């Protein structure tokens, strides 16, 4: 697979369930050897999009091709080219680790000659060597997810779809998992991954921010943080938080304010001009102000800022 070869193309993809529009007219492309992250809150349409691309759901309108194959016309052709890991763990819990691998190897027509090699490779990749005979259901969540990834990529597909692969996984396992993804991409695989963890989004080469079925922004994490933020970001350490938030939201020159951990983030047009005014305003209301400085926005700030502009109080990312 050469660099920049188009792998996944969506044009005006729409999916309706009855009157509910889960995916609303989205278009994007993913290319060889990159991690494309789909970022958004639960119910934003991430899983629906991935399922359409895997041929598991029919699209209502628009068009999608995966590895140059139209998903509506030839879903079986698409399935041969992809690996898919569903959001809910869906391997056989009553099978042993090696039996699951062998089964999915069989489903992807891995030849009898290659099978032992592929299984050994998948075990090693997933860090499950020595656990071949463990019953899958008895594994910890993080291990199960790595096994699921192993089963999905055993046949070495050029494109891999991962639907929230790290949900419910502890931080150490999550990091290990992302290392696996990076290794695959290094070998030329296109990885399409959904997540609602903002910190994970930083691992992606490119991001598609999705909210209520629509794409709100697209770009590299850096691009998103620099270009899509309307204004500059301030960190405000103060106490008590509640009244401070109310004061900031109504303060002139403040575009937006939100609680962030045990401090506040405020979006302002001009950081240098706003800082003294904010300190004065808060202290006038008997609010104790600690640190107050301009910071680089995180993806969460970008996301909050982008979705907040579509409607007050809605679409806040977790």
């Amino acid at each position, binding site marked *: 697979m050469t660099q920049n070869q188009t792998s996944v193309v969506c044009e005006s993809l729409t999916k309706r369930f009855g009157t509910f529009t889960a995916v609303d007219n989205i278009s994007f492309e993913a290319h060889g050897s990159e991690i494309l992250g789909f970022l958004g809150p639960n119910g934003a349409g991430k899983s629906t999009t991935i399922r359409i691309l895997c*041929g*598991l759901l029919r699209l209502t309108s628009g068009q999608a091709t995966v590895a140059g194959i139209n998903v509506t016309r030839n879903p079986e052709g698409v*399935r041969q080219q992809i690996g898919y890991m569903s959001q*809910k763990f869906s*391997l056989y819990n*009553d099978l042993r680790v090696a039996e699951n691998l062998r*089964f999915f190897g069989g*489903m992807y*027509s891995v030849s009898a000659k290659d099978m032992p090699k592929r299984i050994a490779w998948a075990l090693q990749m997933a860090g499950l060597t020595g656990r071949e005979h463990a019953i899958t259901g008895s594994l910890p969540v993080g291990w199960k997810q790595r096994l*699921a990834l192993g089963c999905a990529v055993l046949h070495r597909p050029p494109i891999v779809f991962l639907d929230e692969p790290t949900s419910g996984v502890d931080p150490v396992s999550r990091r290990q998992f992302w290392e696996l993804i990076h290794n695959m991409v290094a070998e030329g695989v296109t990885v399409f991954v959904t997540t609602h963890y903002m910190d994970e989004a930083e691992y992606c080469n490119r991001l598609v921010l999705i909210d209520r079925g629509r794409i709100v922004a697209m770009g590299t994490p850096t691009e998103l943080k620099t270009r899509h933020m309307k204004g500059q970001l301030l960190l405000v350490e103060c106490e008590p938080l509640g009244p401070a938030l109310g004061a900031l939201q109504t303060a002139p020159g403040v575009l937006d304010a939100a609680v962030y951990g045990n401090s506040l983030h405020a979006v302002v047009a001009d950081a240098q001009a706003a800082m003294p005014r904010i300190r004065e305003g808060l202290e006038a209301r008997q609010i104790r102000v600690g640190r107050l400085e301009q910071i680089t926005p995180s993806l969460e700030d970008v996301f909050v800022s982008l979705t907040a502009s579509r409607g007050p109080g809605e679409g806040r990312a977790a």
Partner: protein
Amino acid sequence: MSWRRVLAMIRKEAIQIRRDPSSLVIIILMPLIQLFIFGYAVNLDIEHVPLCIYDRDGTQTSQDLLKHFQATEYFRIVRAADSYNEVVQHIDDGTCTVAIVVPPQFSQTLHSSGQASVQALLDASDNNTASIGMGYAQGILRSYSSEVQAEWIEKQGLATGPPNVSFQARTWFNEDLESMANFVPGVVALVMAIIGAFLTSLTIAREWERGTMEQLISTPVGKLEIQIGKLVPYFIIGMADTALCAGAAVWWFGVPFRGSWTVLFGCSMLFLITVLSLGYFISVLGKSQLAASQLAVVATVMPALLLSGFIFPIDQMPVAAQWITRILPPRYYVSILRNVFLKGTTVRVMEGQLFALAIIAVVLVALSTRAFHKRLE
């Protein structure tokens, strides 16, 4: 069609069956339990009907008659009454179902006029037992009367030709034996119809319920490959169950086996493919295991019991019902098993029935493939 995928599917199903102890219990115990329940409980023959006797004659002749009741296994004399009141009491409290009252001067009347009657009292609250008990009593009396007749003819010094009446009596008892023999092969067919559909009715539903279907249908596996892969292990189990049931019919119930085992197993294979496909089709339709298994029971038990000719003869059904039976696999299998067991019928004679089963199997496989979609909607 990729045989590697089919084989992988078969292996996976087999492992899952082996690891699930409850499925093993169903596989081995369920057919046997059903066979014994249907074999004994639905048995139309009745033995050891509790009998009360009241001998008001008290002669050698009346005792002779009552000995006939004692000698048969259909009745068990549990009470000998001394008064009518006692007879009524035994019937009332359910100690006895049938009472035979020999009138006074029975012996005298019989010898003088050559005709005498005996009174039978029946507790008909269980209609079936009562009428069968009545039949038995009549049979015994008929056989007794023919003996008396033969004796009388002999005493008169007339030639003793084979008396018609005694021949009738023998037919009566044979007929009972036949009904038992007739019954058990039908039971085997019934049990296999239920088990067959039940075995596969859960397979697809289980994948949906456990969430494993999503991963499975994201692979390039074909619909027919899934179906074959899921049916083969159950087919092997079904054949083992058939052998188990047929063996129990012959060696436990003592049903005569006059046909060939090859024909029996050949026909059973075809039948199993049909009912397994029915179960699979049901599994595709009902997405939960509970719904699927209930649907399977409704779709197999009722037709197998009522419309297969197992209890009610098909040629005595209304024409519309007769037409319905033609699309029901158990109808053909009940008849095939009876033929193979009791008559030793060859395949050639049953060609029509086998052909019908084959058509039903093909239709069901086609319907299942059409009904199954590799999509989540």
